[in-house]
């Protein structure tokens, strides 16, 4: 019994206790410089975002308020290595309901951008990016579908200027990111 309790207490400690050495006090400022995330310091943790988040209702892990708190505390490493940041569906309910005008969904987007620069990116985004670079469209539209458009009396699809697209990928640094991640 007492041994069980000991284990339990240790686990609780592991979950509840944050180590100063894991915190980066400058992280919140780093985030607040990213577009859309300027309001991060205004969050007073009321929890409206989590209460109204449709994803939080069905996920055991995605809690927007918690993400914001973790940024404020500077838990950079935990955040950037956490798959949970990819669960926001950008419905923007949190932004509309926040009493402090914090751009929560935009802050999550900033976290995603930073994760991609410093770490990894989910496969689906690699695919979308590479499709856009190759065709201008986010999905590879099968030739059969294009033929079908003719039969349905729809005008042919506009084409992308691929040369310019490559330039824009280079200029925004996305080409480099994709190259580094082996796409």
């Amino acid at each position, binding site marked *: 019994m007492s041994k069980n309790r000991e284990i339990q207490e240790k686990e609780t400690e592991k979950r509840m206790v944050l180590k100063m050495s894991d915190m980066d006090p400058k992280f919140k400022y780093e985030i607040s410089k990213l577009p859309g995330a300027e309001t991060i310091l205004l969050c007073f943790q009321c929890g409206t975002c989590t209460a109204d988040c449709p994803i939080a209702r069905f996920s055991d892990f995605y809690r927007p308020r918690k993400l914001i708190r973790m940024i404020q505390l500077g838990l950079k490493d935990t955040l950037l290595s956490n798959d949970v940041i990819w669960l926001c569906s950008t419905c923007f309910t949190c932004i*509309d309901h926040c009493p402090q005008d914090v751009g929560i969904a935009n802050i999550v987007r900033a976290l995603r951008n930073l994760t991609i620069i410093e770490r990894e990116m989910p496969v689906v985004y690699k695919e979308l990016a590479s499709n856009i670079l190759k065709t201008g469209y986010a999905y590879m539209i099968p030739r059969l579908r294009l033929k079908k458009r003719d039969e349905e009396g729809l005008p042919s699809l506009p084409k992308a200027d691929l040369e310019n697209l490559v330039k824009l990928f280079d200029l925004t640094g996305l080409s480099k990111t994709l190259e580094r991640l082996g796409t």
Partner: protein
Amino acid sequence: MQELKYLIFLGCVIPYRISSYEISARKVLEKLGVKLVEMPEFNCCGFPLDPVNHDMMLTLAARNLCLAEQQKLDIITLCNGCFGTLNHVNRELKEDKKLKERVNGYLEEIGTEFKGTITVKHLIHVLAQDIGFDKIKETIQKPLNPLRVAQHIGCHVVRPGKTVGFDDPEHPTILKNLVEVTGAECLNYTDEMECCGAPIIGVNDKIPLQLAREKLDHIKAVGAQALITVCPFCHMIYDLNQPRIERTFNEKFGIPVLHYPQLLGLAMGFSPDELAFKQLRVDATKIFTNARAGFMLHETHVESRVINSL
């Protein structure tokens, strides 16, 4: 009245797999005297790359806006995602000089410049505001009563409220009013503004399916004969994925999901075939046959397909 003319921005999902939306939208807009000009050139609106690289999203969107500026035309989109992105970037670049400078820095390299001279509209804005309910009423030949439907307007066409600045993001009425113009009754149901979850389906498909199941449950509970959407992503979740939702949760819905222009087109007198009803995954025939006597549409034959064998 001045001729209404727009540059049509189809986006990627519609030509990829939801052409029933495009076919029906072009039909009803033509009937309403709207002229659509095709994009001279195209790239994705940028929405899928916002999580990857914010600047890339801004630049992709701005490039499309520049193309519209060169044509001196406002953009009409059929997709909520495209509308949300293009409208947001257009407004932000018009208001924020510094941001405009940064984006124009990228665009300069490909010989173009964002000026801020056009407006971005979604199909429902064009219908409700530019064309107007009176004009739409004039084109209704076969009012759809006593059809009872529910609507799902989607997120990016109303939220964030401050950025979109159109309709009430908590209780939007525009699509409800557009439904009622056709003579169909638009039913209220629980949690109408619940997101479809489509944007995360590539990362996690369990949550979107749970969200969709809940939505379909709420719609079924009020006895709606069909669900009306105005976004290809929402439509994909509720229509294309409905058999999968039924399988996953061992529940039967069989709720047809129509694009709004399909509903309007029926009321205008187009046949279900002309409106590409055959491309819908969930059989929509029963909304004609189940309707009470007096509902004239059952005269039109729609090829019925078996989707219940799952």
